[in-house]
């Protein structure tokens, strides 16, 4: 019985750690426990912890829990864990195979580091053109975001708190943007900034938070909402600080506010 619980907990852990909603984590765990002969099961998932409690047919309860220290967005891992959980619940694979597959998923690297960095910068390049910006603006924003994108990925790898990394990334984007706008004042800064900011805005976290609240999970919704708010605050501090310095030095410079 312990092994079944451990495998379900491991799947839940991977889902939560890779950015899943709590209701989905609960669904996956319950699905994996459905074949057990138990009288009751309770699955509690909050943003930073999973608790599974079952009552066996002989009346003996078992409870296991796992705290989740950090979260990320990895859409491929969410898909893979869902597939493994589905196969396990349909008895297509046994416990040891399931655990093995989950461990492999955990260590899988979807894309190399450099590709994620270049992908982020190319996204800002495409968004600038998509928002109606010029090709020069798009090329500029590609180079402007290249180093901050590298920095964000690196800080995440080094376990630096996201609040700090957002401050630094916001500041870096502002510094490089201001340099580019000083060199070429004709750049359409609004289109470029909109594309650059989109990679840092905690819109995804905010939407997931509200979805958690709508699903009735107020604790996780509130904590994720706070996370989104802190990310936005970090970003604002980074961007605001650099712009405040720039404006106080140049009196506005090329920027007509």
């Amino acid at each position, binding site marked *: 019985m312990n092994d079944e619980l451990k495998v379900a907990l491991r799947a839940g852990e991977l889902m939560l750690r890779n950015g899943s909603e709590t209701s989905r984590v609960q669904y996956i765990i319950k699905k994996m426990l459905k074949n057990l002969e138990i009288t009751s099961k309770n699955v509690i998932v909050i943003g930073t912890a999973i608790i599974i409690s079952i009552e066996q047919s002989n009346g003996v309860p078992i409870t296991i829990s796992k705290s989740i220290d950090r979260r990320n967005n*990895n859409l491929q891992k969410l*898909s893979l864990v869902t597939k493994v959980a589905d196969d396990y619940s349909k008895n297509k694979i046994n416990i040891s195979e399931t655990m093995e597959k989950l461990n492999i998923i955990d260590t899988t690297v979807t894309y190399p580091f450099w*590709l994620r960095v270049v992908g982020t910068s190319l996204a800002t390049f495409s968004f600038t053109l998509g928002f109606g910006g010029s090709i020069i603006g798009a090329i500029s924003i590609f180079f402007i975001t290249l180093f901050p994108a590298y920095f964000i990925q690196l800080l995440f790898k080094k376990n630096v708190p996201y609040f700090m990394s957002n401050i630094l990334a916001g500041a870096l984007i502002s510094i490089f943007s201001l340099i580019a706008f000083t060199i070429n004042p004709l750049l359409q800064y609004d289109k470029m900034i909109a594309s650059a900011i989109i990679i840092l*805005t905690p819109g995804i976290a905010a939407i997931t938070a509200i979805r958690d609240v709508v699903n009735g999970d107020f604790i996780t919704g509130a904590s994720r909402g706070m996370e989104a708010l802190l990310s936005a605050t970090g970003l604002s501090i980074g961007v605001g600080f650099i712009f405040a310095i720039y*404006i106080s030095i140049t009196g506005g410079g090329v920027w007509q506010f």
Partner: protein
Amino acid sequence: MAILEILMIGVGIGFISIALEASKEDLAINAILGSICWATYLYTSQIFDNRQLSIFIASFLISFLAIYLTRRTGKPLQVYLIAGILPLLPGLNIFYMVLGFVNQDSKSILENANLTIQILSIIVLSLVFSSSIVRLLQRLKHNRKRSEL
């Protein structure tokens, strides 16, 4: 020009999906969803001349498509939803809000904070609407099947 914009938004979503570590087979799907989202937004903006309504319609459509794809592929909703909705996020409003703080422009801060909250709420509202409609349809289908038995 609009076609190029729609196309570039799709390409951008494809690239951002790499940063979000979506699986390789989902990159193209996400790119198409991003393009559909932006095309709907641009088209409805021309008809209604109302940004909020356009965002609602675009995110509503993307939610439906994401739910459909989730049911077909068995993958979590987030895989398709996040990428599809990304172009609608109010990045520029957040930037202007920060700029308002720097310039001590209370009007700009309030205006942009208000718009940011409005847009995020509209996106969530459309998600809730679409998932509620799908659940309702499912329940109706289930009830009809039960009554036939």
